[in-house]
Structures are given as C-alpha cells and as structure tokens.
C-alpha cells in the first residue's frame, strides 16, 4: 500500500491540541480506480483512549473493526468510534470507489476521552446524512448539520464521552449566521473550501480558526460558497500523553497500550474482501 498525503491542521507547530480535540486530518483525493479495496485506504491499526470521528464529504468509507462491526457510510455521513480500552479497525474507500475511482474526501478528528472513560468498552456509532439534524440560518443560505451535542435547539444523534457539539457547515455566498456555542466550550472552525469572514478576519480554504472563550456566539459571514466543520467541547483539563494511535494520561499507560496491542488485547481484525 502506498502512502497517503493529507493535510494536518491539528496538531501543528505551536498548537498541540484544542482540548478535547487532539487531531484533524483532511484527506481530499481523486482515486484513480483500478485498485483492490484491500490495497486502498488504511488497513488494520489499533486505538485506545479516545474517539476518532470521520466526517465523510465525498465517496464512502468502509469501516471494519475487531468487535465485528462492518459499516459503510457515504457522503454526508459520520463514523463515530469510541476506541475505549482498545479496538483495531480499518478505514477504506468503498470497493466500488477503489475499483472504479472517483472523488474521496473525509475529515477525521480525534476527541479525547476523560480518564474515567478511557477503559470503556469500544463502540461504533454510524450516522447517515439523512439522519443528521440540520439548522438553517434565517436567510436560508447557511446549513449546519448537528452530529453530536446541542445546537440551536437541535440535538445530534451521536453521544460523546464528554459535553461537546460537533457540526458540519455548508453555506452559499452571502449567507450570515450567528452561531451559539457555550462559553465554556473550546471551539474551532476549519474550512474545507470557500471563504468566510469572522470579525474582521477573512478565513479561507484549509485555514483553521481557534476561538477564545470570551463569548457565547460566533458570527460568520459567507464570502464564497463554503464547507467547514465546527468543533466545540468542554475542555477535559487532564494530562494528555499521545503517541501514534494511543491517547492516555501518562507515558506508562502508552507503553502498556503498545504492549497490550502486541499481546492481542486490543482485539484482532481479519478483513474479508469480496472478489
């Protein structure tokens, strides 16, 4: 399998995390096709101690994990996997996409788990586009998909390990919206493409904005058609030690996670492929 080139706005130089959010990967690709599914995407790998979440924007993602779950979610949907005490999973473009090619675009972000939840049983929550509640701006030009948490009276179907609101934004040029975010939540906005104005700043494609906790709303003006994500959550305020695929509270716990994975205690995933 070849490498995967993606954008990583978080962590980056000078910004390790926006508690409880630890990572954002933006993978935007044109798949050429002619591949077997087993040669595409990301093969089996472990996690412990946090929740990797995938927002799918183009194409579909085929999730398989060591608890026996197999799930395909298409564009507009979400895969929300709490790795808890340990899981092994794979994330691949759908068979059709790998074989026939096409556009593939996802955002994966990580949400830390509080120490008290790091050893919960692993779980997987799929959410389809049509099951994602939406909120529209008064001008009808901004649509917010509510994946988890509460936003303007709508509740996202997915539940997290700590209080948060994770949102998808799609907006047309000229739209405006004042978004209410609890003041004690940390919040960030990442633009997949487009251009928005926040305060006196212009924010464009692949820019990320991290907000201060100095108010309860974010006013956005849409300068160009825009797709973005908004992640907000109550900070966990615990020590974070993150190495590779594990996020724990101490380095000793990381070492034990590595050893436990080698011992098979995080589970085993044997993928089965058609054809």
């Amino acid at each position, binding site marked *: *399998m*070849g*490498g*995967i*080139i*993606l*954008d*990583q*706005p*978080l*962590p*980056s*130089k*000078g*910004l*390790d995390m926006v508690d409880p959010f*630890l*990572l954002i*990967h933006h993978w935007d690709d044109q798949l050429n096709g002619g591949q077997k599914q087993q040669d595409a995407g*990301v*093969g*089996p*790998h*472990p996690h412990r101690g946090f929740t*990797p979440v995938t927002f799918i924007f183009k194409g579909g993602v085929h999730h398989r994990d060591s608890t026996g779950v197999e799930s395909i979610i298409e564009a507009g949907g979400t895969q929300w996997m709490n790795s808890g005490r340990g899981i092994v999973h794979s994330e691949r473009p759908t068979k059709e996409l790998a074989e026939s090619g096409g556009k593939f675009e996802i955002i*994966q972000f*990580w949400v830390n788990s509080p120490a008290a939840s790091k050893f919960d049983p692993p779980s997987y929550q799929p959410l389809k586009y049509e099951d994602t509640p939406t909120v529209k701006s008064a001008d009808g030009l901004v649509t917010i998909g509510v994946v988890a948490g509460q936003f303007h009276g709508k509740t996202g179907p997915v539940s997290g390990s700590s209080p948060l609101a994770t949102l998808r934004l799609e907006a047309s040029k000229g739209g405006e919206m004042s978004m209410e975010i609890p003041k004690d939540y940390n*919040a960030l906005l990442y633009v997949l493409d487009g251009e928005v104005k*926040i*305060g*006196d*700043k212009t*924010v464009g494609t*692949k*820019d*990320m*904005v*991290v*907000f*201060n*906790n*100095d*108010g*309860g*709303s*974010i*006013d956005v003006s849409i300068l160009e058609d825009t797709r973005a994500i908004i992640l907000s959550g109550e900070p966990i305020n615990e020590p974070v030690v*993150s*190495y*590779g*695929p594990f996020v724990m509270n101490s380095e*000793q716990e*990381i*070492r*034990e996670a*590595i*050893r436990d*994975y*080698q*011992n098979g205690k995080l589970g085993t995933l044997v993928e089965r492929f058609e054809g």
Partner: protein
Amino acid sequence: MKRQQFILNMSLIGAASLLSPKLLFARNSKPIRKVHIPLGAEHIRHGLYSPKQIVSTNLPSWFEVFERDILLSNGHSVGPNDLGVLNLKVNADSLSIFQKGNDFSILNGRENHDLSPQNSVKTIQTKTGKILILPVGKNKIEHPGAIGICLKGTVKVDSQQLNEFDCLSLTSEQVVDVKQNSIIILIQNTL
C-alpha cells in the same frame, strides 16, 4: 458578547503529512547469521501503527521480533521526546523495548526496567525467558541459543560485529565484546 478574537490560521504550511509504511527487509543471506531489525516508520499522530514481524530462518521459533517504530511526541515532526518501540515475543509473551533519546527500557508486566549497562551482568526475569544486560568489556557467554540484540553502539560476538539493532542467535561459548557506550541484551528461553 461575541467570540471575535482568535488565533489565526494554524493551518497547513508544510503540514501535508505522509502516512507511509515502509517495506521491511531482513538480511539473511546464508553466511551471515545476524538479522537486522529495520525501522518500520515514523508515526505522526494517528499513524499506521502495525509493526510487521521479521521473518528469518536465522531466528528460533520461540523468538519473534518486529520492525521498529518511532512515535513522534508532538504528532507531526521529529523531536527529543519521540518514543522508539521495539516489540519482541518470547514464547508468545510480548515484551516491548522503548527508546527515549539514549535511554532504553523494557516493559515487563507493569514494570519498566532500565537497560543501561552496569558493572556486572544484570538479569531481568520474564514470564518465559530471561534478559541479561551485559557490562562493557569482554564477556564469555555460554548460553547456546540465546538471542543477542545490540541496542546501541557496536558489539563483537567472536569475529562478527553487531551494529545497532542487529540481532544474532548465539552458539555456545562465545565471547561478546561490548564496546564503550554500547548496549547488548541477551534473551534466553527458560521454558
């Protein structure tokens, strides 16, 4: 009150990241009995962490060794707190050797043992094996079948030189010459 102040645009300058598993290889041409443990990958946060076993006819069936990995501490670029990982199995019991800077340690059960050389042989008992850390200088060894792994510096086993992350299955009565600032561990099967 509006949230108008923000840290602008951490964004993506040079942040395109490559998740790239590398092929492993092991030197196992016939006259040379030593096996090199290659570096698998350096992992950003996430990372395709899935160490591959090194297959070699020069290694006994009770011993498994996996390619090494480096887990980047800050999640995006090389730094002083990166964690090197070398996984072993002795009779299916997993042991993980960790490297931070010049320091090596092994996790055995829930206990970390320092692997720096002492003035005499240091022994660590595991579930199914024994790990010996040899002191600097010439050590006459009579542990046929034990595995020697050079973690740091260079070590001579009779006439054969082991460099960092070379390993070797020992025959009886060999002289292991540990050079200054070098570390070798011997792993014995006690089952």
